[in-house]
């Protein structure tokens, strides 16, 4: 992909979203980091600024504006807080790929990393939700989605930033 993609980062950073954001900042991507109430986003923003001074990155107050500009939305919002954010972004996330990064709390509570993505797909029926989580070993990112074209796009993106996409269903 030669055309620079804009990626909106929404929600509280966690291990997977931190890894992806830092890698995306080094590539041909423009990151729009929505501030909201999350001071951790500010911390991540500052970390990336130090690690990758040339990153095309912007802090933006409104998550709706960030998602409106975005080609892909990186959504790291705990299940319990999804409803409020989804209400704001639903219209502008239409048909867009939403990369759902379940928080560790969601994983602990539900025992399954899929639930946050399934819940989100229910909230955003016209978006293409792709579930993503770090496999805790090597550079593997487990992916799953009901939208094959979105899954393919995200697999390409994950490869482009130096990770290995694995199909969550098959493990390959």
């Amino acid at each position, binding site marked *: *992909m*030669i*055309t*620079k993609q804009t990626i909106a980062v929404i929600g509280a950073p966690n291990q997977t979203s931190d890894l992806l954001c830092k890698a995306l900042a080094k590539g041909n991507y423009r990151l729009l980091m929505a501030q909201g109430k999350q001071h951790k986003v500010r911390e991540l923003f500052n970390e990336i600024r130090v690690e990758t001074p040339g990153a095309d990155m912007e802090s933006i107050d409104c998550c709706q*504006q960030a998602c*409106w*500009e975005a*080609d892909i939305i990186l959504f790291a919002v705990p299940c319990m807080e999804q409803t409020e954010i989804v209400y704001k972004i639903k*219209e*502008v996330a*239409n*048909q*867009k790929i939403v990369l759902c990064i379940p928080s560790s709390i969601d994983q602990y509570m539900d025992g399954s990393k899929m639930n946050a993505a399934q819940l989100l797909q229910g909230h955003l029926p*016209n978006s293409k939700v792709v579930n993503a989580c770090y496999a805790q070993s090597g550079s593997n990112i487990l992916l799953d989605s009901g939208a094959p*074209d979105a899954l393919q796009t995200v697999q390409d993106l994950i490869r482009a930033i130096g990770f290995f996409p694995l199909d969550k269903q098959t493990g390959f």
Partner: protein
Amino acid sequence: MYDLFFRQFNKKVPLTMEEQLEITKFLTPKKLRKRQYLLQEADVCKFVAFVEKGLLRQFTLDNNGNERILQFAPEGWTISDLYSFLTAEPSSYHIDALEDCELILINKSAHEALLSKIPKYETYTRLQITGAYIAMQRRLSSIFSATPDERYASFMQLYPDIANRVPQHMIASYMGLQPKTLSRIRRRISNNH
């Protein structure tokens, strides 16, 4: 967000509210800032973009790095590399924003789904492609048969809004002229009046 898109659609093919809501499910709203690219050469064009607000241009670079503008797209217009969109071959064009833009994108899978689900979308697409073909024929005829003065006068008459929003060197590029040549034409026309 979709006001102008559906106004234009309804002018060509009137829709019921239900059809409008169904079509909305397949549309991608996208904001683009001035000078940002929507498409760059060598990428496959995966969308058709309708301009709700703002102004874009489609251009290519010649061997000397000069911009050759193929199309301007202000509000109410559609812009894409249809060849790349339909064949999935890499595009030879760039599309960028000359002003901050609000766009409605229809991606390939949405386009295919709309064609099969909404017969009126198929009619709308046929009319759009017919219109684009006629416009291309007119442009080619103008390049082959009209003088540069006539082409400039025709551009100013047909697209006064675009002429007011883009710099002269871009109009020259669109017309296949050197900026100096366009300046001479403008002087000549203004002296004649």
